[in-house]
């Protein structure tokens, strides 16, 4: 049985349909992410689970119990707010102890639990500090400790890393993973950063406009997106007009190939072919075995140090396709305007209904 079970959950803000029928099961101990562009309803869904928003249709069960009418203080969930919401008038230790006010533990037991929680997030010895003396990353750790000290069944995190700088964010990503494995609590993370969702999660739900487009593991999401929007949102994908005729696909600018049934997403007929930039190669930089060849012109180039992205114009195709190349020692960097020979693998083609 899943720990969290949403079925047909709908939410209206006045005229605005914020959640349009959410079905979702999350297992105990999972690191689960809600991923989607800003405004798609991730926060709303999270707040629904926490109990801050009521739902207008459908049911929400946590641990088998219907949560209708159950207020946030009575749910087995705790939340790390986007703003952290650290109480500025309390010390770090008092913040962490806040949720223990109503528990039956004695004073010493509470102090022990607070110390343990602070230790766990790497803030041992910071108990006497005031929140305004802490850095952003440290405040976030306080928010984590404050929620985890209550040993909730589910920890809800609303874009917890978005306010941190890049280095700190990467540190906290691995830290959060480590914490989650250590405590074994179900984490539900809201993020608009696809990389973050892929790095951290066991499973990811991709949301658009109040509905879930796909729920899958990061690998499945990336290699077999459920539709064009998901493919586009996760990483980059080149889309080319394509036509399917008795098992053979004619891809504009690339040529014809055979595809396996599992490469076809949705119905056949008029279709679009999708290829990841890393599924293609510049043959002049790095030749490959068993690849089809296509010719074009390099329209632009972006050099990233470890990678180079080539924007290649193909004959008869509007716009350009992006090809990413790993820069190895001694490998060439091609010039803009030069003719390009592209190698592509038919097995990496995905077909989407147009």
């Amino acid at each position, binding site marked *: 049985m899943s720990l969290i079970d949403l079925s047909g959950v709908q939410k209206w803000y006045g005229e605005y349909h914020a959640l349009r029928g959410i079905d979702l099961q999350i297992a105990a101990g999972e690191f689960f992410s809600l991923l989607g562009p800003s405004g798609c309803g991730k926060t709303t869904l999270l707040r629904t689970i*926490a109990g*801050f928003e009521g739902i207008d249709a459908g049911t929400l069960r946590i641990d088998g119990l219907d949560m209708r009418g159950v*207020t*946030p*203080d009575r749910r087995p*969930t*705790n*939340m790390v*707010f*986007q*703003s952290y*919401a650290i*109480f*500025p*008038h309390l010390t770090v230790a008092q913040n962490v102890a*806040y*949720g223990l*006010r*109503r*528990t039956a533990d004695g004073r010493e037991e509470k102090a022990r639990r607070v110390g343990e929680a602070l230790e766990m997030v790497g803030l041992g010895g910071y108990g006497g500090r005031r929140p*305004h003396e802490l850095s952003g990353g440290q405040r976030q750790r306080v928010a984590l400790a*404050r*929620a985890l000290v*209550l040993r909730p069944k589910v920890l809800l995190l609303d874009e917890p890393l978005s306010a941190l700088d890049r280095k700190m964010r990467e540190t906290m990503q691995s830290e959060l993973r480590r914490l989650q494995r250590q405590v074994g609590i179900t984490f539900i993370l809201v993020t608009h950063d696809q990389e973050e969702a892929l790095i951290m999660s066991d499973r990811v739900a991709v949301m658009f406009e109040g509905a879930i487009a796909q729920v899958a593991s990061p690998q499945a999401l990336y290699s077999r997106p459920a539709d064009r929007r998901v493919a586009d949102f996760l990483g980059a994908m080149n889309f080319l007009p394509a036509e399917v005729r008795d098992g053979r696909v004619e891809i504009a600018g690339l040529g014809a190939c055979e595809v396996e049934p599992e490469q076809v997403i949705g119905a056949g007929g008029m279709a679009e072919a999708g290829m990841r930039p890393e599924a293609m190669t510049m043959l002049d930089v790095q030749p490959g075995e068993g690849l089809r060849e296509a010719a074009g012109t390099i329209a632009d180039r972006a050099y990233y140090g470890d990678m180079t992205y080539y924007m290649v114009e193909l004959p008869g195709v509007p716009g350009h396709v992006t090809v990413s190349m790993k820069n190895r020692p001694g490998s060439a960097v091609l010039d803009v305007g030069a003719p390009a020979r592209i190698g592509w693998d038919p097995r990496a083609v995905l077909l989407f209904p147009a």
Partner: protein
Amino acid sequence: MSRRWLLLYVVLYMALLYAPIALLPIFAFNDGQVIAFPLQGFSTRWFEGLWTNRTLHSALWNSLVVAVISSVLAVVLGICAARASARYAFRGQGAVMGMIMVPLVLPEIIVGVSVLIVVNTVLGLPLGLWAVIAAHVLICTPFAVAVLSGAFQSLDPAMEEAARDLGETPWGAFRTVTLPLVAPGIVASLLICFTISLDEFIIAFFLTGASPTLPVYIWGLLRFPADLPIVMALGTLLVLASIVLLTMAEIFRRRGAARAGRKDSGGFL
């Protein structure tokens, strides 16, 4: 050149503003019954006169009672209004908040006369301090709302939610998180309302009945020129008290801004 004129303007402006107030202590310590130059020498007898004047004491007591009760009531109402307007969106919100703020610009004489008519004619009740309190709550509440709105508006709504999430009841969350965070605003608005009520004259004059408040009593004194220096002494003390109160209010407001980690963006002082 223009700098010099500006400086002159500022000096004149300040002089006009504060010269009358500066006269208060000068004549309060002047050893003469007539309020006129040249001064007669230093004396503290007018302050001693204050000390022994029984009717003045009862007027002061009346004023303190009125000011304390009406400022507390106004601030409690102000907390409710400010929180409601900061946290919720409801139908007619603008209109309701506007109605609350209107007494800010309502001439006090109109408030005084209308409450007088309501109390005397409509309700047929005797006048008294309670009527003054009611009217003072009316005129103080908008000031309380104005100060408290700032405090509530700048409060992260997630604070109270976090408290709820961590197991507190709605009231518990309000008491242990919201109240401490807006406490500086509450103290500041209490002090402002107290000051407004303490020196309010027109409304008190209409409604006070047989037991005058301090401003009404002072006005009565003016008819006896011999008592004028006593009024000067009293005025001196009141100015001092006002300065102390307003300074305290400002200190609390700034402390509130600092505690919430906000940048100080001006205030009423």
